[in-house]
């Protein structure tokens, strides 16, 4: 599933709700879904607030995929080059800087964060292994 979203907080939450819907349909455990939703909220908010500067006329894309045992979230925007995985390497003392809390949460709740700059786009891929779905009773 790929969503094209305008750079607003409401659109960020539209993506989060789509993820939650996808997770529930595939019976992902609620606890893991909470962490994934939080990671998506933080990364997409970062795109809206920093890369696209709250310009609602600009758009970014979110791709959501559920494989057998993993979730993939991919965000693409055409804002200035910014690698949040490098920002995460800031010392603890700087962790309260804007974005510092968000990336700390993302790192905690996903298994892998990969950044690439391709074709003038920031591409951020988050992956998380999820437990097998609960068997229907």
């Amino acid at each position, binding site marked *: 599933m790929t969503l094209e979203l305008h750079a607003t*907080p*409401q659109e*960020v*939450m539209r993506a*989060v*709700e789509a993820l939650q819907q996808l997770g529930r349909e595939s019976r992902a455990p609620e*606890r893991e879904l*909470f962490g994934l*939703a*939080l990671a998506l*909220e*933080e990364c997409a*908010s970062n795109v*809206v607030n920093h890369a696209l500067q709250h310009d609602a006329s600009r758009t970014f894309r979110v791709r959501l995929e559920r494989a057998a045992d993993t979730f993939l979230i991919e965000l693409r925007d055409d804002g200035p080059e910014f690698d949040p995985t490098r920002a995460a390497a800031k010392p603890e003392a700087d962790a*309260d800087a804007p974005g510092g*809390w*968000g990336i*700390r*949460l993302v790192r*905690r709740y996903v298994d892998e964060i990969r950044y690439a700059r391709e074709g003038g786009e920031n591409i951020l891929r988050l992956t998380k292994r999820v437990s097998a779905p609960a068997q229907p009773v």
Partner: protein
Amino acid sequence: MPLEIQIQKNVAAGDAGAATVKLTGSLDTATAPELERQLAPVLAGPGKDIVFDLAQLKFISSAGLRVFANTRKALKERGGQASFINMQPQIQEVFEIIKALPGIRVFKDLAELDRYLAARQHSYEENR
């Protein structure tokens, strides 16, 4: 998911200055500004303490935590405090990861908070 905000003033027995803010739903990038807007008149008033009841809060992100951090700072400057009750485990985990609110008071429920406030009042009266 929307956020429902209910603000009640002076409901905690024995603590006339406290307001209780009950949050239902999601405190996120889209809803945090509304909470900030509704808290502004409370913070502009004479009350020193705010109790956040998070029993029905299902989701929180760093945008929501920043509202709590700003509220705590504003109350601390006037000798008050922000307290949290009925925090769900997934919300508490986010607080712990961020370590954003050192020294915050988290209570299991309203009864535990009331006991704390009564003890604080007792200590205050003894020291007068």
